[in-house]
């Protein structure tokens, strides 16, 4: 199956260029993030593209609240966070996003696996998929660049059509992850 045609990503684009272009081609105008080292080039690319409104929230659940409001106001919106930040949002998911049927687009930079050097990150990573599974949130772990645009593009369309949130876990296999500074 062919990947979707992206509006302005070069043919050999980096993972973050593909994510930016796929958000744009799906009219996702608002991106609220809590910073993450691995996501830095994505955050920079989104800041540099005037199509987007983007800024940092102080907490991940705050970002989910903002995204929920924007969706209700007619604007598609995504949140970016790190694995440890995901651990702060189960209440916002379970008592707002999921029961209200809000297609929040949640991008998680995966820490805690494939070479993690911080035990705290490794432990919190183990909580993420069980939480998503128990809430029935559509979740994709993306490891391959050639599947990236297809998964995100189709899943955004599904989220909007079915009024349900979706989580994209961007694996270190895709992004390179964060490596221990020797």
């Amino acid at each position: 199956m062919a990947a979707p045609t992206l509006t302005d990503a070069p043919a050999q684009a980096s993972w973050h260029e593909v994510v930016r272009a796929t958000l744009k081609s799906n009219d996702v105008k608002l991106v609220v993030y809590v910073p993450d080292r691995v996501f830095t080039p994505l955050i920079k690319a989104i800041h540099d593209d005037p199509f987007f409104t983007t800024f940092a929230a102080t907490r991940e659940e705050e970002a989910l609240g903002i995204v929920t409001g924007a969706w209700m106001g007619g604007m598609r919106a995504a949140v970016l966070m790190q694995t440890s930040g995901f651990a702060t949002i189960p209440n916002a998911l379970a008592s707002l996003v999921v029961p209200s049927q809000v297609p929040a687009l949640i991008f998680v930079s995966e820490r805690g696996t494939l070479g993690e050097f911080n035990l705290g990150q490794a432990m919190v990573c183990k909580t993420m998929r069980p939480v998503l599974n128990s809430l029935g949130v559509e979740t994709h772990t993306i490891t391959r660049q050639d599947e990236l645009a297809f998964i995100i593009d189709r899943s955004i369309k599904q989220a909007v059509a079915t009024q349900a949130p979706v989580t994209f876990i961007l694996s270190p296999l895709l992004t390179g992850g964060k490596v221990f500074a020797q």
Partner: protein
Amino acid sequence: MSTSAHNAKVMNRFELTKRLVGHLKHDEAVIGGIGNANFDLWASGQRPQNFYMLGSMGLTIPIALGVAIAQPKRHVIALEGDGSLLMQLGCLSTVAMLAPKNLTMVLWDNGIYQITGNQPTASAATADLVAIARGSGLAKSAWAADEDEFERLFAEALKGGPTLIAARIDHKPAVGATDRDPVQIRERFMRGIGGKR
């Protein structure tokens, strides 16, 4: 705007909610915070532009901010309690950073976690939430001295913000209670503000 917390009159949330709603002439969106802020908003009349939170304590102002970003021509009002705001103080900094002109935050400060059994909040004795808001960068933050000043501050806020208006309120329970159907509440609100056709 020089009234301090300790000399602001103690008012009633439902009475002030009714006065506030009386100023809404342009289909302004109102986000009611979880619990009694919600319940008194519901009891004041169920406008299609009202959103009632059923959980996610602390996210009233973030939700209102999201609506304000998506619809810059519509004024958005957040009704939040002191306990809820204390849970998510960072959102004041985010609002100040973005400075949306179409956002007004109303704080009902009764000094207690009323719905869970009247336990005291930090704002009952020590924390001054207007001072915290100002320190977060929200210059237009004020205690309402009495009902008339509350209305005057609110009318002024509708002309352009962001503004935070705090009211000391009594411990009387809310007058009503919301329905608890989140999909219906969200659908009605979206259609009420044209977020969905």
